[in-house]
């Protein structure tokens, strides 16, 4: 393949813009190993596109930088914790094990606590009324025996 024609075919520009197909990229890799001039050309096109991009740069909002810096600090804290150089950091895994856990709304916590408290109250009342019922039943069982005993005592006195 004629090197000059290959370079002027636009393949390098296509590669730098990310439009080359995987086959074209493989071919370019092969060619740049054979011909160092191609590497020089790639470098020149990369720098042209870089100049173009910097010429019309638009500063992202400060909030975006803060988010990036925050991630850097998190990573730094994580690395320090791993190496044990700073034990003041705790890592919370926000991406839990999705296969074995579920996520529910916070109102379910109140509902669950209320359910537990109510179940305790009902259990207490059930035991209380059971004991009272048992006491009354015993009293009721004892009452006819007492009346008979009194009648017997009264008739023997007469």
């Amino acid at each position, binding site marked *: 393949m004629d090197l000059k024609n290959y370079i002027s*075919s*636009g393949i390098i*520009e296509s590669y*730098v813009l990310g439009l080359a197909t995987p086959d074209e990229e493989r071919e370019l890799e092969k060619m740049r190993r054979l011909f160092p001039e191609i590497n020089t050309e790639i470098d020149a096109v990369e720098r042209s596109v870089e100049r173009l991009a910097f010429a019309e740069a638009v500063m*992202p909002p400060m909030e975006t930088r803060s988010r*990036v*810096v925050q991630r850097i600090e998190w990573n730094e804290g994580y690395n320090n914790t791993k190496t044990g150089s700073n034990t003041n950091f705790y890592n919370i895994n926000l991406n839990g094990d999705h296969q074995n856990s579920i996520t529910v709304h916070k109102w379910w916590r109140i509902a669950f606590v209320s359910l537990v408290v109510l179940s305790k109250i009902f259990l207490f009342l059930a035991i209380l009324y059971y004991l009272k019922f048992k006491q009354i039943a015993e009293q009721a069982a004892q009452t006819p025996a007492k009346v008979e005993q009194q009648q017997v005592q009264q008739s023997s006195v007469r």
Partner: protein
Amino acid sequence: MQQDNVHINEHELVNQLLAGQPLAQQLAYDKYAAALYSLVLQIVGDTDTANNIIVNLFSYLFTHVQEFQSSGYNTLFSWLYRKARELAVNHSLSITSNSSQATSLTRQNLGAIQRFASTLNEAEQLVFKLSYFNGLPLSAIAKLMGKEEKEIDLILKSAMINFRKYISTHWI
């Protein structure tokens, strides 16, 4: 930020990024974010999405910088430029596939690449925009335009030859 970290060359910057230096990571953001943000904005069209893509792009850089060394790119910026375009295009593809607007070309502002595209003939312009801004593969463009994939490939190659001429007269 330390003064000696501000003016380091790209080779040293890459080495420090590989070592996971936080100051180098901030420096990389300060150096490249604006140029990449402009590219992403041209593709996705709204600032919130562009901000998210920039955050994800730099997170990717900090965790995958070793990939740059085997990427074949000579400059870190070119590698980031490609990655930024990929992220933006993937986002646009997911939006367009959900809203059935695969041929929408309305999001791009008038950036330098757009100005170059306007110098192309109608067919080249359409193929280039669908490929560069919308990230469609040649097969999808061929289907969309009712042409052979080989024909679309030739049109895109012609557009790239014109791009080569364009940058040699405008940006070198």
